């Protein structure tokens, strides 16, 4: 007797909770008389009103996050990586005959080995064939500019970069020349704009590599 009463009471509570949740979720079925559902519906109205009042802040937060992702290059799309190619080949192989599969694997392996060996050949830079020459990575040469006082100009450029929290490397070269190296993030528009009047144009890849020599 007691247990059946308890279970009936439990069922009643379940119904009340269900009605509340239905009301909160704005279900059509709560338009009737159930007080719990009406309370839930009222609460829904108040919560929605409050969330609408906060909508501009939420939108600003959303936009700030999207800008952050864009600055990090996360929305630029993904290039096919070597792992993707391998996955594609792996998915294709089982559908072909065993000989085609094996020969394809051998071909891919051979190509991989040849690339690996070619990477291990010493380059001019690594072998030190021209060790007395300043070599920048790749074929790109540093930007050459002249100034009456290279050190002062380098200081000004350095200040601009540091004020934008961009680390800069300074090398003092012979004859009073100064070399500056830095990497500007894509979103460092203020730094780019501040460097332009100083005669520094930053390439799209963001690497700054400049040699300031004394005006002859």
């Amino acid at each position, binding site marked *: 007797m007691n247990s059946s009463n308890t279970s009936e009471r439990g069922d009643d509570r379940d119904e009340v909770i269900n009605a509340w949740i239905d009301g909160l979720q704005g279900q059509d079925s709560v338009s009737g008389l159930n007080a719990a559902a009406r309370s839930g519906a009222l609460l829904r109205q108040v919560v929605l009103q409050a969330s609408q009042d906060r909508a501009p802040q939420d939108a600003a937060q959303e936009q700030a996050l*999207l800008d952050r992702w864009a600055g990090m290059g996360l929305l630029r799309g993904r290039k096919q990586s070597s792992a993707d190619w391998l996955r594609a080949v792996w998915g294709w192989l089982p559908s072909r005959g065993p000989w085609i599969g094996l020969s394809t694997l051998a071909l891919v392996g051979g190509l991989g080995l040849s690339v690996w060996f070619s990477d291990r050949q010493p380059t001019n830079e690594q072998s030190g064939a021209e060790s007395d020459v300043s070599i920048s990575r790749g074929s790109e040469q540093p930007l050459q500019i002249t100034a009456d006082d290279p050190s002062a100009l380098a200081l000004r450029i350095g200040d601009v970069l540091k004020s934008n929290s961009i680390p800069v490397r300074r090398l003092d070269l012979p004859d009073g020349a100064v070399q500056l190296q830095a990497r500007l993030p894509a979103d460092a528009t203020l730094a780019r704009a501040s460097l332009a009047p100083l005669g520094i144009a930053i390439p799209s890849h963001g690497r700054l590599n400049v040699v300031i020599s004394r005006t002859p």
Partner: protein
Amino acid sequence: MVLPPRRRPAFDSGEFVSALGEGGARAERAGRALFQCYRPLLRARFFNVGVAAQDVDDLVADVLTTIVGKAGQVRDHDRFDAWVYSVTSNVLNQHWTAKGRARDLLQPAPGASANEGDLLEEAASLLDNVSDPSVSDPITALCLQGQLEAFRSKYPHRHACIELVVLGYDAQEIARHLDRSYGATRQFISQCCAVVMQFVAPCLEAAQLLGRGRGRAAAE
């Protein structure tokens, strides 16, 4: 005031990953969909485990940024939700480590109250004598908004949970993200409703008195 019906923000993990791979405007749309769908869930979880209110939005941003950055690694889209859960757990662990506090100390006690049904019935009865149980009366509306704000600042985890239900997330989904069973989640939702009703009760009582006063004046 008529408020538009709200639906749970739509999100398709397969579409999200492919849009991010393509980049551009489609990726941006996918990012917005991710934000709108997962932000309420993540906020609810962080509040629920006791993260300080001023840290919650930063942690949400960290989780979403990790998801956008690593979404390309997801192979099984059916497990996307579980992956989000594990990313969130990692971010939480890092947060606790950085704070140098024991996580266990901050776990709120699970709701042990068994009489939430009674509380809800009691709260619902407040509406019985209110002639216009809506927010159309401006004074009642102001009162309700103020009390809801008080509730939100005192019980951010309960408020976040109620907001999830209002936004259309089902109890099953909320349970997954709050790391509770389905039954416990339903009980938690009802407790949240009972507590918020205690906050809004003074407004409803005032509306009740106001309604009676108006009725009497009309009769005279």
